[in-house]
């Protein structure tokens, strides 16, 4: 982990996956940051976790389902209340194709 090669290409690829466009200055800064962070984080390689299953929550969670009944929900007007981009009762989005 500590020896991970971090370069501009990696940072640009990660940014693209996260739908972020970085300036050249940001790319340069994030290359340095990632090197520093990953070097520092590499210590967890040393932790003996043999036989341990990963914990994705801290308490035991129950799978809980509500009765399948029609209940009050957001009106169309409320759902669209916070968008600037709407038309004929729908959200208007950018071109898909």
């Amino acid at each position, binding site marked *: 982990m500590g020896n991970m090669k971090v370069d501009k290409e*990696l940072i640009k690829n990660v940014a693209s996956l*996260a*739908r972020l*466009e970085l300036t050249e200055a940001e790319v340069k800064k994030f290359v340095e940051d990632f090197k520093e*962070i990953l070097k520092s984080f590499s210590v967890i390689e040393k932790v003996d976790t043999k036989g341990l299953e990963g914990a994705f929550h801290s*308490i035991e969670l129950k799978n809980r389902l509500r009765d399948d009944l029609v209940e009050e929900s957001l009106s169309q007007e409320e759902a669209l209340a*916070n968008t600037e981009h709407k038309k004929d009762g729908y959200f208007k989005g950018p071109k898909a194709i």
Partner: protein
Amino acid sequence: MKASDFVTQIRNGDIDVVEHTKKILEEVKKINKEYHYLTVISEKEAIEQAKSIAKNPAGKLAGLPVTLKDAICLKGIETTAGSRILQGYKPTFDATVAARIKKEGGIIIGKTSQDEFGFGAFSVNVGIGFEKPLNPFDKHRSTGGSSGGSGGISQKVHFPHISLGESTGGSIVNPASFCGVFGLCPTYGRVSRYGLLDYSNSLDKIGPMGKYAEDIALMMEVISGFDENESTCSDKPVDEYTKHVGADVSGMKVGIIKEGFAASNEEVTRHCRNAITALEGLGVECKEISVPTAIKYGIPTYYLLSTSEASTNLAKYCGMRYGKHEKLEGGFNDYFTKVRSKNLGQEAKRRIMLGTFARMAGYRDAYYMKAAAVRAKIIQEYKKAFKEFDALVCPTVSVLPPRFDEIDKFKVVDHYNMDNLTVGPNLAGIPHLNVPVGFEKELPVGLMIIGDHFDEKTLIGLGSALEGK
């Protein structure tokens, strides 16, 4: 004055709730100009609420001024989690905690400033266009973070008041410590997260901050408990926390986390040791204990897991349905990329990218899965400790509140390492309380008391025992 005494006076008609609300709003506006604790002051709504309480002064919080961290949705009031990408978003519903506060007569006067989406330990990572909150004891220093506005206003105001903060890796106890107030991060699942703009959904917890242990207990009684709108919210019965304020603590066993003291500076440890001596004077049995993995390996574990979740949770912010919009042009990816790149701050970008990286094909096992396994080990160590002890203690933050010019020189990992004492209990989802235990160079020092899952009442008992000592 404690919140409960104030509420009694409101109910008895000794205080005019409308006049009081108007008066405190003026005080808040004045403080806010100087210290930047609130992103929004909901003046009109607060006065309306006060008028309705004047007619029927019922409820556990009748007439009490309350503030909410900006990440908590409040119907009709701009809610942004401190980020420009959510500018203009006015929720059409109340978060469960907000609804419960209103139901009990609490008057919500505004939203508190924070690191953008909770991404920070100093409240300096505020979103684009926001102002950072200033420490109530020294304006050149940090309030702590990420619930910095909640910590600052809780200390600074002269009227009874409780704030709700939110913690993912330490964001309640850290600012509580730097601002010299009580702050309780409850067990994961004790308080509903419905209506909380999430950072990391397996770690986020909402909890109270305020001047008195009893205020914390009172607010916990209001906001805790099952919520059918939130699948991770526990249906365990809620304790009567206020009954544990001032409870007899003699005979309790408290473990002193040695790694927590070793990692803290001399000034902080001295005050925390004094508090332990005070507990011993009350008949508490205190003994050193080692919880090795949490402090040594907690930081990478926490950051790899929390940023992985954050990168997914923040994917929904794309300028279409709410928040900041841009001119609709180009394809989906062009538009989303433009909105996100223009409106997210540097730390938000950094954490989204770190989380995206940690879950990428080829790296997932080495980073994300490894961190999840270390988290399991950390949980086991705490659970083992609670077989022997009722609670554990160590300093809340290892240093005194730093100055902004010192923070400016910190590297990214220095920022992250500031959470070294608080990420452990957050990863384990166990409750932890900051108790103000003294002043050094006129700056507050906090002791963190950590309890087993759903044992907030023990923390309230121990915390209140130290109050004013």
